[in-house]
């Protein structure tokens, strides 16, 4: 099998693009896809400092690698989540990636704030993914604005976006559909722009890129993600993709072009300011502060019960 672009032996086959690529041409193709997304959606410029949320997985490290190669000013932000050995390995991979390339990296250890994901989920009996998402959103938003970054980039890929879209459509989540875009402009003084430069590339392409670039990422899956609904949606979409290559791309692209503007046109109440942390909130207190309070209360109760025993 030959590379579609240069006729050298191909290393990867992309059915949705009806193309085969050798290593050099795939890396070029992938980087161009990301570059086009950034330019077309006006995500950020070469002059703007970009805070890149990096987990240690293939997507976020591939994103960081591309942004560096394209010449953007990047700083990594890694949350050490407190999910046992998985988090330790994720932090190790992220730190090693940054150190090997002399890149600035901000690391926040949630356990240092008394908020290790597994502890919070256990105390509050909330689903771990829900607690984890609430804390990620808060720290990404807060650190970006406090450190003066105008934009946060995340490694969401086409599969993530397609699965999220499917979930939002299945439940007709109108406000979420209105906000599902590769660029989210700030609607509050303590929000910054949020962008998803990988929204045009598949999960497979991100993994291939990471492999070809020699990026040492965490291959293990988060233990808390087992049985996650998003994985079910991804599986359904991949079954569709198997019989009809390109379905995921069409699903997301056509939504963004045809449907999303209609949902976005509906009037939306602007966020208020959380009385606890000063970050944006729909209620008097934001979800993060409610989660922290509940965690602290239940921890105190548990400790008091232990003291009695």
């Amino acid at each position, binding site marked *: 099998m030959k590379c579609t672009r240069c006729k050298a032996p191909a290393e*990867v086959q992309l059915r949705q693009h009806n193309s085969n690529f050798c290593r050099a041409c795939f890396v070029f193709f992938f980087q161009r896809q990301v570059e086009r997304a950034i330019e077309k959606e006006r995500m950020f410029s070469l002059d703007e400092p970009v805070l890149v949320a990096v987990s240690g997985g293939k997507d976020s490290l591939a994103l960081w690698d591309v942004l560096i190669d394209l010449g953007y000013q990047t700083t990594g932000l890694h949350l050490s989540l407190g999910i046992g050995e998985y988090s330790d390995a994720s932090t190790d991979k992220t730190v090693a990636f940054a150190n090997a390339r002399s890149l600035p990296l901000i690391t926040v250890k949630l356990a240092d704030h008394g908020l290790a994901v597994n502890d919070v989920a256990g105390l509050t009996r909330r689903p771990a993914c829900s607690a984890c998402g609430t804390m990620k959103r808060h720290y990404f938003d807060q650190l970006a604005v406090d450190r003066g970054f105008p934009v946060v980039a995340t490694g*969401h890929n086409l599969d993530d976006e397609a*699965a999220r879209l499917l*979930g939002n459509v299945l439940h007709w989540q109108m406000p979420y559909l209105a906000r599902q875009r590769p660029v989210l402009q700030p609607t509050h003084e303590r929000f910054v722009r949020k962008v998803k430069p990988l929204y045009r590339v598949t999960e497979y392409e991100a993994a291939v890129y990471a*492999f070809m670039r020699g990026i040492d990422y965490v*291959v293990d899956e988060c233990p808390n993600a087992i049985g996650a609904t998003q994985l079910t949606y991804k599986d359904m979409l*991949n079954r569709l993709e198997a019989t009809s290559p390109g379905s995921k791309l069409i699903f997301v692209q056509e939504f963004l072009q045809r449907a999303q503007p209609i949902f976005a046109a509906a009037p939306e109440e602007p966020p208020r300011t959380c009385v606890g942390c000063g970050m*944006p909130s*729909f209620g008097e207190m934001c*979800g993060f502060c409610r989660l922290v309070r509940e965690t602290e209360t239940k921890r105190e109760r548990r400790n008091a019960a232990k003291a009695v025993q």
Partner: protein
Amino acid sequence: MGVGSWSQGAPSPLVSAPATPVSSPSLMHVTILPQRKQVEIAGRRRAADVLRELGFLPGTAMVIRGDLLVPENSMLEADDVIEVRSVISGGAPALDVEGLAP
């Protein structure tokens, strides 16, 4: 999707599923990540067929031989040593950063 989730009617390619690496020269040796599971498959076949027989949908796993990827349409030899690495990850809404989820 996933190892062990055979599609209905698909013949099992597994000769054995030993807990430790095996050394038979006439069998394809497959390491599946992230499960770190090792299996043996008899006979040469396309990478796409190996993936299908292991229960992977197209585009959900990389086939790695040495330092190179193997395209899904390419043949794998009967005595190849390969790695099949899943590319699927998830757990949203944890991954979302839309900022104001209730």
